């Protein structure tokens, strides 16, 4: 496993509400990379992002940013929040604001907000050029583009993006990936992005590190290239299915054969039967682990 410096380090992060419990003993987000926070709806992704961003302050535990600031610094030292760009799923433009007002207010709110860059970003993302239209009248996709343009028009070191891909069409998701890569390379090794997503396949080509959250807990994490060595996809004939079952994480089968994910280190337990082994995609890894855990918790 590769060594790294953390841009965010968290300890004993705990948040309860109702039956839900977010419980993360240790959290590390690598500096200089794009990290995907993956999980089903309600897994706790947004709650965790809100806690990191300081949108939510009613949590237990401690956080460290950029290896030198803690959660109190985040609230008291403007340098910390100036270095963080946060994009949430809720509306943070007031409903009566026009596109123009939204731009002017961000100029007032953020020290490093670069209006020219913002306009350039809006053009790149093909936001309709309608300054007097109310932001609340724009489509979800266009509202998301305005939010993304807003965080990218500032001079930050860390972006926290909550489901940025969800309201975007495939072309715009591709642009989003390009923008993340452009951001990371603009200061080699010093800029980091943490985004949540359930569109794993669309974001795979930009994901360096992944944190899989389920039921408020981290169930797997690591650099994608390391995980692709840790797990393998196994395919085999129907006759060998029962024998292979014991090492498989999740299995799908039909009349002709079976397919599943297994730990690479357990592959030799399948010696003697004829299987085809392939490198898994990130979505295959995530889906298999999610299925396994759902079965354990008896959710489905």
């Amino acid at each position, binding site marked *: 496993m590769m060594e790294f410096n953390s841009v965010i380090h968290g300890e004993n992060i705990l948040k309860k509400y109702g039956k839900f419990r977010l419980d993360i003993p240790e959290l590390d987000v690598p500096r*200089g990379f794009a990290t995907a926070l993956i999980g089903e709806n309600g897994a706790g992704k947004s709650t965790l992002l809100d806690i990191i961003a300081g949108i939510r302050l009613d949590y237990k535990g401690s956080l460290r940013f950029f290896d030198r600031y803690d959660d109190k610094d985040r609230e008291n030292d403007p340098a910390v929040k100036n270095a963080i760009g946060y994009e949430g799923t809720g509306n943070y433009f007031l409903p009566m604001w026009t596109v123009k007002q939204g731009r002017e207010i961000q100029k007032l709110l953020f020290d490093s907000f670069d209006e020219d860059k913002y306009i350039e970003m809006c053009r790149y993302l093909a936001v309709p050029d309608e300054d007097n239209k109310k932001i609340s009248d724009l489509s979800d996709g266009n509202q998301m583009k305005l939010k993304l343009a807003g965080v990218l028009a500032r001079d930050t070191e860390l972006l926290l993006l909550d489901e940025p891909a969800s309201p975007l069409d495939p072309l715009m998701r591709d642009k989003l990936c390009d923008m993340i890569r452009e951001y990371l*390379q603009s200061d080699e090794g010093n800029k980091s992005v943490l985004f949540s997503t359930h569109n794993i396949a669309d974001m795979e080509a930009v994901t*360096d590190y992944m944190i899989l959250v389920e039921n408020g807990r981290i169930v797997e994490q690591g650099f*994608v290239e390391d995980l692709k060595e840790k797990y393998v996809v196994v395919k085999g004939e129907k006759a060998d299915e029962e024998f292979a079952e014991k090492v498989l994480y999740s299995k799908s089968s039909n009349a002709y054969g079976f397919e599943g994910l297994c730990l690479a280190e357990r592959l030799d337990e399948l010696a003697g039967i004829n299987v085809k082994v392939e490198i898994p995609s990130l979505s295959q890894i995530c889906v298999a682990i999610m299925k396994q855990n759902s079965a354990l918790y008896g959710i489905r």
Partner: protein
Amino acid sequence: MIISQMSGVPIYQQIADNFRTDILEGKIAEGTYLPSIRSLARDLKISVITTMKAYEILEQEGLITAVQGKGYAVNAQDGNMLREQHMRKVEEGLLQAIASARIAGLSQSELIETLKLLMTLQEE
């Protein structure tokens, strides 16, 4: 550089193969810096970690060296490595020829004769 998503060869391997060939063939001069990890990731539309893994492979092979704060520089290459690289290609080609000869029912001497004949034809 052409990267295929569908070839079954991991992308980091494809990148490493491309640079290895270019370095060994002298297309990238000694002391040249490879593109920064994150700019290559951007240009190839792939993740940073994939690019990083490609560079790590090349570093392990002694083809490049990480220079603190500056990136990865191409090392001086000795001629033997280039020769070995070509030898490998020769062997690959010959192995293919042997396989085809077996299918065609060619004897060893017939195969060698064919090779000699082709070489003389090439020289002319």
